[in-house]
């Protein structure tokens, strides 16, 4: 940790890589190898930066980590040792601080790539443990993925108390390569407790001004900048940059005016550049207060907590049998769909709860968090009564979540307030304690005050606490509604945000929607900020939109107008057959109910669904319909099968058989496999989808566990066909003789035979034909 505030401008050093890469001694080597092979060169460069006026030296260690250090005869540890030794020698007899430099791993993080959060954490932890006793601090720089940055920050924070500076790179659009804005970076890094945050590399010093201005209101921490010398250009094998030292200094002064307090340079800068900006050293800088507002975010969406937001309640298995079953089976498709449907319906963030009796909630909440974040951009409110589960999920969350919840009991506060403080997460605070829910508003406010006081002792400001006034049904006691409303009023006098789980108010009464809507309007007026509610209930969303419009929260009534002018036209079809052919998924339920009045589920499948799919298949073969319509029809048929399967006595009855499918190890493309999955499901097969980048052991394990009738393997590229062959060989070596079909862009009948597959599926419809053949 920094031991004193930064009240005057400090100077960081400049580029290492671009200063070294053109030297003859560097040719054919990783630049860090020079720490051992030519330490005098590195030491000399460090000294020149010190002479230029740098207060901080960056060790020559950007690529040193277990993951990234490859193709060198030297070990990463000895190279890191040398990097520190040479910087220390240069700084000897000065006050200059030696900061150990760490760059990104060069791997793409999950879910887009295959590098896990844990791998990213361990990669940095190993370095920190090795060097922490010999440096003055750490600088993590040039990160373009917030998730990897998060893992790296935690790895440093949890393994040393030394100062930590963290900087990210942004492109010309003002986002990182994974879509995070400077505001999101500022909120996330501040929440994690870095000492200094900022921007490096990226584009030019001029473009940094806007980035600093955007970060500044969202953090009280010092901001550092290390821009490039403009844009790189190459000529005759040499790289040039388009800024002069004077121009760089001019824009550095603008950066200081915008709120930067530590300034230096990145690619293309030199000791002369640092000398040019050293004249700003010691200039007084402002101290910035913590933001007045409270924020949560995902990697791509920042949300200021304020009145009139909607927290979606549907990612919660309580009372939802289908979601519960899906979660227990670790089938996250349903959860992901619920998340996306709520996002489309207008939710601003989503509550995520996976509390199911007798399940490993910690593991499940982590998996569910990852899966929802994989497809949905909305920030999440992680909801659990287990402190362990909450901390584990906060840890792997990408961004800053809200948590739900702590309460006024010592046990809850002792367990969770340190977690809230460590991760900087806003939290829902329930106005109850070990004695239960107070009957009166005064009792609830007393608990709220106790939580505020206890939180303050952990350094947590009341703005991070979002108080739940607690809603109980009026069917058991009619005063419950009034108590909640009085509590809301009193909570607002404490200067805190408020939240309630809305639908409890009407439990046990008929026509609940009317009560919920009316209570929502009353609660808004008495001090409610955020309802946790069902955003798929259009009427209650209307109440929120109308309130926001009438109270001026919704500027120019924009969201109200947008919500009420979106198209709602739905194409109609007369019967189930035509609904499937036309791909009208939303209408099949109504048609099935009608069909079931006169037919059995079995006959609906054989007499309506299969002929409809056959019709679409024939049209596809004749090229009168194309892939999108084929899939739409398949989706409609799949929805029909799902409804019909609930009418069978046994769960699995109605399925023609089980198929295990996967995109093989090393391949992260999965759209082809997903199409095959939908089409197989539409024809009545149960599909166990293992996902993408799946290793052979997982495929074998799935075969043992699910006893499928066939295995389907997908690969897009020649480079991963080997993995496909390896998987088939592995299955055979274990005595798993199941039919294996393969498909993918580069495969042919010949290649399929060559790698030991039983069938080659050219497209999704062919795969169904193969299954039919196997079944017979």
């Amino acid at each position: 940790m920094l031991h004193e505030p930064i009240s005057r401008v400090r100077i960081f050093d400049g580029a290492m890589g671009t200063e070294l890469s053109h030297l003859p001694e560097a040719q054919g080597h990783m630049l860090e190898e020079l720490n051992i092979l030519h330490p005098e060169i590195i030491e000399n460069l460090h000294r020149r930066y010190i002479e230029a006026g740098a207060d901080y030296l960056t060790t020559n260690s950007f690529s040193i980590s277990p993951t990234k250090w490859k193709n060198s005869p030297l070990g990463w540890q000895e190279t890191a040792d040398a990097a520190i030794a040479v910087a220390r020698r240069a700084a000897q007899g000065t006050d200059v601080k030696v900061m150990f430099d760490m760059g990104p791993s060069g791997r793409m993080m999950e879910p887009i790539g295959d590098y896990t959060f844990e791998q990213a954490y361990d990669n940095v932890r190993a370095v920190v443990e090795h060097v922490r006793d010999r440096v003055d601090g750490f600088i993590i720089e040039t990160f373009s993925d917030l998730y990897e940055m998060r893992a790296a920050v935690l790895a440093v924070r949890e393994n040393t108390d030394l100062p930590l500076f963290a900087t990210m790179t942004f492109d010309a659009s003002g986002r990182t390569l994974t879509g995070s804005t400077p505001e999101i970076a500022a909120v996330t890094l501040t929440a994690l407790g870095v000492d200094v945050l900022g921007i490096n590399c990226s584009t030019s010093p001029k473009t940094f001004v806007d980035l600093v201005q955007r970060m500044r209101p969202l953090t009280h921490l010092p901001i550092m900048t290390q821009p490039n010398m403009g844009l790189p250009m190459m000529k005759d094998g040499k790289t040039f940059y388009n800024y002069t030292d004077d121009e760089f200094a001019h824009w550095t002064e603008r950066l200081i005016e915008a709120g930067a307090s530590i300034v230096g340079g990145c690619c293309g800068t030199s000791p002369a550049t640092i000398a040019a900006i050293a004249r700003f050293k010691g200039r007084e800088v402002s101290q910035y207060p913590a933001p007045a507002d409270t924020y949560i975010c995902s990697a791509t969406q920042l949300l200021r907590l304020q009145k009139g937001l909607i927290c979606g309640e549907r990612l919660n298995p309580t009372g939802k049998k289908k979601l519960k079953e899906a979660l227990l089976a670790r089938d996250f498709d349903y959860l992901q769909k619920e998340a996306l449907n709520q996002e489309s319906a207008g939710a601003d963030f989503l509550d995520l709860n996976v509390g199911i009796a007798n399940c490993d909630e910690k593991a499940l909440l982590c998996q569910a968090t990852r899966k929802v974040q994989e497809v949905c951009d909305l920030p999440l409110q992680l909801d659990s009564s287990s402190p362990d589960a909450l901390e584990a999920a906060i840890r792997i969350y990408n961004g800053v979540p809200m948590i739900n919840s702590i309460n006024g009991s010592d046990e809850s506060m002792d367990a969770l307030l340190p977690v809230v403080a460590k991760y900087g997460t806003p939290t829902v605070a329930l106005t109850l304690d070990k004695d239960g829910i107070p009957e009166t508003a005064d009792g609830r406010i007393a608990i709220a005050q106790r939580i505020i006081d206890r939180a303050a002792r952990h350094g947590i400001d009341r703005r991070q606490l979002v108080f739940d006034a607690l809603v109980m049904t009026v069917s058991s006691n009619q005063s419950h509604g009034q108590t909640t409303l009085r509590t809301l009023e009193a909570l607002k006098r404490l200067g805190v945000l408020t939240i309630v789980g809305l639908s409890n108010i009407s439990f046990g009464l008929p026509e609940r929607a009317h009560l919920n809507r009316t209570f929502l309007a009353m609660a808004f007026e008495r001090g409610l900020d955020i309802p946790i509610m069902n955003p798929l209930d259009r009427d209650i969303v209307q109440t929120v939109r109308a309130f926001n419009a009438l109270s001026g929260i919704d500027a120019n009534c924009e969201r109200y107008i947008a919500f009420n002018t979106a198209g709602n036209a739905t194409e109609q079809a007369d019967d189930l057959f035509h609904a499937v052919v036309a791909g009208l998924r939303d209408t099949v339920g109504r048609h099935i109910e009608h069909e079931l009045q006169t037919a059995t589920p079995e006959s609906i499948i054989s007499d309506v669904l299969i002929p409809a799919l056959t019709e679409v298949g024939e049209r596809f073969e004749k090229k009168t319909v194309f892939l999108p319509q084929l899939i739409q029809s398949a989706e409609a048929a799949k929805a029909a099968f799902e409804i019909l399967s609930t009418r069978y006595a046994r769960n699995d009855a109605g399925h023609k058989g089980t198929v295990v499918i996967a995109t093989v190890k090393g391949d992260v493309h999965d759209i082809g496999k997903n199409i095959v999955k939908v089409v197989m499901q539409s024809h009545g097969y149960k599909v166990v989808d293992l996902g993408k980048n799946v290793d052979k052991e997982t495929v074998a394990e799935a075969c043992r566990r699910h006893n499928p009738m066939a295995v389907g393997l997908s690969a897009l590229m020649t480079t991963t066909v080997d993995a496909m062959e390896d998987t088939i060989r592995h299955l055979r070596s274990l005595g798993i003789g199941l039919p294996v079909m393969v498909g993918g862009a580069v495969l042919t009948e010949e290649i399929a035979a060559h790698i030991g597959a039983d069938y080659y599926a050219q497209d999704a419809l062919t795969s169904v034909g193969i299954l039919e053949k196997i079944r017979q």
Partner: protein
Amino acid sequence: MEQTLLNGTLHYLGCDGRHADTATLSLARQAIGTMTALADFRCCEISLSDLGHTPDFVLKPAYATIAGFVAEASLFAATLGIRVDRKIKSLGTVDMSAAVAANAAANAILDARVEAALTDGQVLFCPGYSGTDMSDVRHVLQLLDAQRRLGIFTSDSGMMIPEKSVAGLLLKGYRFSCRGCLIASKCEHLRRGLTCYGRQD
């Protein structure tokens, strides 16, 4: 541009403008709109003369067919960025047909943007064409510093991430051939007497 993208999207969906029905056209147009809004096209190029040397991989025998074009060649890479990948994935969760259309639209947008970035007579020759090694794409990306400059990563198996990325050599005056193409035996274009690069070979 709008018509180019529509034609390209329909092409990737397996149909063309003459055959596409209203529903397909509507889906394609919607996908083009969505993907255009998310596409963050970036590209970079270095001529081999500015690079100062001819990369070793270009000297492999498989590259003999382009040997005459190397003197004026450039290394090139381009991407639509990660948000396009995420959106396709997210659409696939709730609406696979929209995901397929978005995938096709993204391909068409990348093609069009790359085409617009090329100068007259240049074609993009990617490793994997004409019997060359697809994994050579790593060398192209490394020499361009494409991870840092464009955000293109490569997986252990040599795949580019984001998926909607291309990398290769810009060659002036080169004419493609289907010789050595891995999927020639099942190529839909060849069956119809066409090629994927838009003209009779």
